[in-house]
């Protein structure tokens, strides 16, 4: 069965609202049992994708499969097996947090009373307060506890930690690690890169409703540049004109430059005869990975506007 290998498989998904294209041929593949980071700038289509997966939106074109079913047709059956945390949690003002957690759990088909109470403790949430008095972070906790207290095999989390403080952020990371150990699947849309680096096996970066990168963090790093700082005994002359070398700064025997990670080997071979006295190599951070695509976005926007 496909479900054992792929929890989510999306191919060439498109969705428009009126004239605005929210998704434009998006591809996404999430293997069962992995924590998959879903990254992209605001308005790139992350929430729309998740709403399609929830069967709330009907796709215009493309193929969407989730847990072996069709999210639109088999919505109710699939929803018994997944839990969802919206990015912007709105609750019923007159109902307490504890009641919301219980209600959502029961409507999904039952929740683990024990785990619910334990999560309330860990997230330090007062379940007796009415939802109207909760802050954004506390509303977020209500939705998180409701999702984590279930035994759903798939968690769809849309920027789940956007209102949480650093302490709660680390509680959240622990919880996701536990979920991972239990072999459950998580689709985590997030802006917090440290969180993604800490939790995710693979990531997909989307932009303007389209997938631009997808793979493990190591694979993605391979596609970007590594920063090198080097000191040699002989003058640094051979660097200019080398393929894959960018932004070179030479100062006598010192040099700083970026190199396409794919060309790293060639460049090091060229440096070795010069007598390397020190060398530091900094792999690209997720931030840089990210900014590269965000930067592209700004250029793309600029082009579209002009």
């Amino acid at each position, binding site marked *: 069965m496909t479900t054992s290998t792929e929890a989510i498989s999306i191919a060439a998904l498109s969705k428009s609202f009126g004239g605005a294209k929210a998704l434009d041929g998006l591809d996404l593949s999430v293997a069962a049992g992995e924590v998959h980071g879903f990254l992209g700038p605001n308005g790139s289509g992350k929430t729309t994708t998740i709403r399609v997966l929830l069967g*709330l939106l009907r796709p215009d074109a493309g193929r969407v499969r989730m847990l072996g079913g069709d999210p639109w047709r088999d919505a109710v059956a699939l929803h018994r097996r997944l839990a969802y945390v919206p990015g912007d*949690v709105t609750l019923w003002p*007159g*109902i*307490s947090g*504890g009641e919301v957690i219980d209600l959502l759990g*029961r409507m*999904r*088909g039952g929740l683990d009373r024990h785990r619910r109470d334990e999560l309330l403790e860990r997230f330090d949430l007062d379940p*007796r307060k009415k939802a109207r008095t909760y802050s954004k972070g506390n509303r977020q906790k209500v939705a998180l506890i409701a999702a984590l207290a279930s035994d759903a095999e798939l968690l769809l989390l849309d920027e789940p930690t956007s209102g949480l403080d650093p302490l709660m952020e680390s509680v959240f990371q622990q919880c996701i690690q536990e979920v991972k150990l239990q072999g459950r699947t998580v689709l985590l849309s997030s802006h917090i890169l440290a969180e993604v680096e800490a939790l995710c096996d693979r990531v997909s970066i989307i932009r303007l409703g389209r997938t631009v990168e997808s793979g493990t963090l190591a694979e993605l790093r391979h596609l970007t540049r590594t920063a090198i700082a080097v000191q040699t005994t002989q003058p640094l002359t051979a660097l200019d004109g080398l393929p894959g070398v960018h932004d070179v700064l030479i100062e006598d025997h010192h040099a700083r430059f970026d190199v396409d990670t794919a060309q790293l080997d060639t460049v090091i071979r060229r440096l070795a005869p010069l007598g390397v006295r020190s060398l530091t190599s900094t792999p690209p951070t997720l931030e840089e990975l990210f900014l590269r695509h965000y930067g592209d976005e700004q250029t793309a926007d600029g082009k579209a506007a002009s």
Partner: protein
Amino acid sequence: MTGTLSLLRFMLRRERAGLPWWLLGATLLVLVQSTQSQNLYGSPEALQRLRQTIGGNTAVIAMNGPPRLLESIGGEVVFEIFAFVAIVVALMSMFLIGRHTRAEEETGRAELIRSARVGRHAPLAAALALAVLANLAVGVLVVATAAGTGLPVTGSLLFGAAMAGVGIVFAALTAAAAQVFENVRAVYGTVGLVLGAAYVLRAAGDVGSGALSWASPIGWGQRTFPYAGDRWWPLLLPLAASALLTTAAVALLQHRDFGAGLVPSRPGRAQAAASLRNAYALAWRLQRGSLIGWAAGLGLLGVAYGSIADTIEQFIRDNPEIAEFLPGGAADVVDAYLALTVGMAALIAAAYGVASALRIRAEETSGRAEPVLATATSRLTWLAGHLSVALVGTALVLLAFGLGEGAAYGLIISDAGQVPRLAGVALTYLPAVWLVIAVVVVALGWAPRPSAALGWVTVGYCAVVTLFADSFGLPEWVQRASPFAHTPQVPLADLALTPLIVIVGLAAAAMGAGYAGLRRRDVGY
């Protein structure tokens, strides 16, 4: 008070799509009534005949106002239309204030405003200024319409001023209520209740000695007697009341925290009750407060109408010569009155039904439907949950009215049989009310964005047809489009089941069609 003026400009901008419709509605009511009345009763003889028939018809007096107004043709116009325009204007004022004060605080938008260079009192002051401006506009439009259709200018000025006075009182009342309650629904509920009481009190006063009318802002307006003596001093009453209520609102505002009311909200349950387990339970939990409020309000209205019914009977007994002119004698007059009041109650029940069904849309646009639909709850169950409240709730609300009216009337004439009888009479209107709800369901499925407008226009249409079909001389086909026109006018007429079954069938089909639309569209847009 800093920032009041720019806030007022902003509020006017936000109201530019809605407010003109309220003004237009009020103006049209006066315009149609004035031309129609002058057509029908323009001659002194016709007016004289009208005075004789209406002067003895307590039901009409209870619905409209004090019969002294019938002295002149202008007064006749005021008699027929004042109370209804007053209700429109009061509701306009209530929504204007509620929307721009408590609702803004509740959503947190006011926080953003207050963080700017805006004084603590500025939002309230701007909202009140907005309401006063809107009511002055109503006044000017009433004066222009009345004088423009040929009524005396002095009386028209008083008519307009009295109307604006009613609106301003309810604006100030809403401003005070908005300080007391933490959510705007409670504010509307309370002010709506006072408005209902104001209408009933003046009805009781106008039928009786007149004393009770002085307890009602609508009564104050009517008792300026425009075109029928032109008494200006009662205008001081709305002025004094508004000043008092505004002072109270300001005093309360000064002593409360942002977002808080007078009574802090109590903590809720740590765990959900065992019964709160599906979409039905959630819908009933969310709507039970407003259902209780509407049922209590309509029950009280029933009691009020029921107690007046006896006065009508007594009047006919005291004046047997009037009964001679009535085909069915005294019994028919009472039955006509009861049929009329139940018809009114049915319109209010329809308004409740629309408000309840529109919760479905509010759940969707607020994003609260999303977590529910992400569970194993199907769209059908989600819709049916809320719809069950609208359908059963309207039955309960009508039943409350029938029981109230039956109990009050039955107690006075010592006939317990009136309780089940009038409860049954009230429920006759249930199919028509359901059909109005079905219109909202169709809109939710196929045209969700204008669903609120469509729902309220439907209620408004039915109200105009029911209340004014005769005095406005509306064409036959216009009347027949309202389901209320097809409901047998029990107890005056015999109960006919066929139209009721047809209406229920139509409602069911329309709801099915609405669900078919909801099933295939995107949720949340």
